[in-house]
């Protein structure tokens, strides 16, 4: 009883082992145990999307996943988006379109945007807003985020040509 659990998982392509309490969220494990602090905590109840990660092929709010559930799963966090060559085109588009002010929501928006563009490379404005409805931003008013996503879609399409 009251023993920590050994979890073996894969984060951003690398095997990661960690020890956690069963009650700890994946977000807590990422930030406080593994040291990946890019995923943010806004609400800790699934509403704000600042903690968004790709879990088992699908975006989720990592505050509503238990760390122990990561056993044998693959996870991508914001730290896995840029490459050694530089920022991802989505990140560049967010910067250049001023789609962030304080930036606390940005990691979640970028992980969610990448998942959107991976499965729908040319989304309509409605599709963008609907897909990102689980991500809240207190600063930008959202329009600039939508422009950045549209710009990122364009950049990704032209880089594939």
């Amino acid at each position: 009883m009251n023993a920590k659990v050994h979890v073996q998982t894969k984060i951003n392509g690398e095997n990661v082992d960690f020890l956690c309490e069963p009650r700890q969220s994946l977000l807590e494990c990422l930030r406080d145990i593994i040291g990946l602090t890019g995923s943010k905590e806004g609400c800790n109840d699934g509403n704000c999307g600042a903690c968004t990660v790709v879990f088992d092929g699908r975006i989720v709010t990592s505050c509503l996943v238990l760390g122990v559930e990561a056993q044998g799963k693959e996870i991508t966090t914001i730290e896995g988006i840029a490459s050694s060559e530089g920022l991802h085109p989505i990140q560049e588009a967010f910067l250049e379109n001023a789609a962030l002010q304080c930036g606390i929501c940005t990691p979640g928006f970028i992980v969610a945007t990448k998942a959107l563009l991976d499965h729908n490379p040319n989304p309509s404005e409605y599709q963008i807003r609907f897909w990102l409805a689980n991500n809240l931003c207190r600063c930008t008013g959202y329009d600039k985020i939508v422009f950045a996503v549209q710009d990122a879609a364009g950049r990704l399409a032209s880089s594939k040509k």
Partner: protein
Amino acid sequence: MKWVDYIQPSTLDDALGLLKKHGEKAGILAGGTDLLVLLRAKAKSSDIIVDIKNIAELNQLDFDKKTGLTIGAAVPCYKIYNDSNVKKYYPGIIDSASIIGGTQIQGRATLGGNLCNSAPSADAVPGMIAMGVTCKVAGSNGVREVPVEEFCLAPRKNILKPDEILVSLNYPAPKPNTGSRYIRFIPRNEMDIAVVGVGVYVELENNKFKDLRVSLASVAPKPIFVQEAGTSVVGKEVNEENINLAALKAKEAAKPITDMRGTIEFRKHLSEVLTKRALQTAIERAKESV
């Protein structure tokens, strides 16, 4: 959240054994989008979390033209609305599954969890009641089938005993000339709790209502089945007058409260208007159905 143990049984029998042993102190975890919020808010207390996502029967998403659709209690919303049979035969399910939370919540949330959480505002439940869905429930004394309209009792209370688990939801086989629809009213475009939600199902024959079922959310302590809506128009012509009559029955059956989301008058009005709109779409779907 206080200390809690975690276990992921891989068979239904193991899960039932754990429930028998721990009783009310076991917290069943499907997508966790209600459970983890409740535990963290200390609105619920569990000694052990029983994660049901590794049990084969609970991951079923099987369709058969004769027997219908079986959705396991651990299947998340996004798998349901991306399923080709659901898209083709059960568009009414997508109405609900695609509006529970946002994309991230739908990556985890299940329809089984929506039912078992038994919120008066649960978005998936009116559709289930309207479509005549039955639940398969397993416990240490065996398996029983329960119609969804008998499942919820009061806010967060339902007929499940502490040693029971919801295994799957069984949607009747698709029939020609039938259609269903779920709509809700919320002040935002998405990510909010229904002020009123309406699920409807119709079966048409020679431009008459052969069957009509209406269910409402957020107008009573549990989602309700409005039987009078059906009895008032079955056998009658499909026209505006009869759609309005069924909608009036929904308004009369609604017994809402006034809270920060809406007043009694507003909710009764919404029950009527949304029933009308939902019926119009369900009738269109019935005319196009395969």
